[in-house]
């Protein structure tokens, strides 16, 4: 029972982690909570669904297609809704613009696809295997493996490549990075593209796993992932991974051992507790105020 719940929690947590990474990377560089990020995840789920229905593609191609479309969408959202406001107004304006972008995207999808919940055709053999006392579904295996692969890939990108190092430099001092010849706007575009691709992969997999896709699915998933990013320490990439997994496991445990009606209350209760006890999150760094 416990092991089964742990596995379920890890699966859910991996999807939170994938979305949380986008929040934390963007926050790390431009100190903006990108509230439209949950909607990118939703669009990813729909693009995957569209590809599967129209061309009968397999899950892998559906995911790659969704990631590509969302990369472009994420960059566009930044160009249109955030960049014109950057540096020219208070920090509140981009936040409000983010809320606007979020509402725009979910409403647009509702207009295009209708508000009803759509179901994925069977793209994965939904059988499950018994591993001792636990039941593992094939989709759980896919989610765990793909998430782990994407996160390892992200770590490699951020630690080893030139653009990754530029991203880290920008997150530490944006002005100094520009003065050293780094094209800050380009780095920000890359950051949105990468974060959006991860969210899109999460959207397709969750759509298949729960067999449900609808235009407002990004709202709660986005909030949960944001909570996970804060839990892990916003701005920290390992923090977002850890926060996502922690939140997923705790939520599932709460459902299993307390009550399923407390599901969301548990997730956000944890967020409030963390903010009181450790405002910088599990792996977050305490910011020294610049004088």
């Amino acid at each position, binding site marked *: 029972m416990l092991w089964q719940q742990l596995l379920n929690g890890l699966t859910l947590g991996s999807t939170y982690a994938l979305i949380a990474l986008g929040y934390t990377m963007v926050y790390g560089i431009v100190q903006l909570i990108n509230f439209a990020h949950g909607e990118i995840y939703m669009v990813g789920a729909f693009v995957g669904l569209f590809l599967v229905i129209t061309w009968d593609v397999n899950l892998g191609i559906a995911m790659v297609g969704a990631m590509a479309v969302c990369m472009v969408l994420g960059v566009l959202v930044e160009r249109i809704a955030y960049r014109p406001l950057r540096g020219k107004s208070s920090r509140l304006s981009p936040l409000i613009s983010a809320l606007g972008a979020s509402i725009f995207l979910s409403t647009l999808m509702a207009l295009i696809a209708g508000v009803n919940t759509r179901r994925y055709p069977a793209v994965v053999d939904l059988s499950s295997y018994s591993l001792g006392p636990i039941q593992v579904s094939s989709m759980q295996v896919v989610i765990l493996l793909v998430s782990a692969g994407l996160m390892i890939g992200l770590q490699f*990108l951020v630690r080893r*490549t*030139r*653009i990754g*190092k*530029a991203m*880290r*430099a920008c997150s*530490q*001092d944006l*002005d*100094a*990075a*520009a*003065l*050293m*010849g*780094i*094209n*800050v706007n380009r780095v920000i575009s*890359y950051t949105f593209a990468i974060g959006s691709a991860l969210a899109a992969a999460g959207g397709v997999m969750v759509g298949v796993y729960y067999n449900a896709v609808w235009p407002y699915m990004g709202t709660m998933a986005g909030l949960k992932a944001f909570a996970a990013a804060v839990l892990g320490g916003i701005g920290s990439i390992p923090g977002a991974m850890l926060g996502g997994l922690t939140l997923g496991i705790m939520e599932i445990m709460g459902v299993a051992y307390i009550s399923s009606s407390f599901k969301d209350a548990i997730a956000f209760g944890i967020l409030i507790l963390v903010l009181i006890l450790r405002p910088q999150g599990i792996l977050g760094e305490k910011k020294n105020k610049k004088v």
Partner: protein
Amino acid sequence: MPVLELQGVSQEFGGLRALDSIDLQVEQNSIFGIIGPNGAGKTTLFNVITGIYPPTEGRLIFQDQPIAALSSHKVARLGIGRTFQNIRLFNRLSVIDNVKVAANWNRSAGLLASLLGLPSYSREQSQSQEKAEALIDMMGLYAKRMEYAQSLSYGEQRRLEIARALAAVPSLLLLDEPAAGMNSSEKLELMDLIWKIRDDMQLTILLVEHDMHLVMNICEQIAVLDYGRKIAEGDPDAIKRDPRVIQSYLGVER
């Protein structure tokens, strides 16, 4: 021939005129000092030159090219490097990555090549690694190249900032109070380093500094700012004798 020329450059913040029609000509391969009391507009001048904010009025010409309207990263890529009054390193990057991240952005291998590890990318990587190591060695930081920048001592951080500013091979280097917080032997080393950089790398140095001993020793030309205006310019001996400079900044020796 001047490498950098300012013509009537003014900068206003709200109602405050932080720079008031500054004219300046910085000759190629010279060491040019800017001095003046706190709040005279010295750092603002650096910020205007490096494109942090465009000047309210006036023209900036760097190597025959107007740069007043360019953004910071473009100014940097044209060949102006700088350091900061309060050190602004990338603290959680290694010493070598601080230098590499600033090195020559006009390269051919793109993101795809880097992700796929194509030969064009790995060749560039090893070249930039060598250049970065040479720079760090010149600054005496080779043994610490893999450490985080934040773990360096104060003097080492100052040297790393210079190495980072040199990474893109600038033709003009701006040093904002390079000697701040240094003791007298460190200041002597710094003077040697500045001469060495100028001679070895054939570049022009523009520096803001409060330490008069250092300024008078290494600068060939000095401009004095006060309340955003240039009140004097000349070689060190002329500046030392200028009555306006003595009154507003240097003070009277008793």
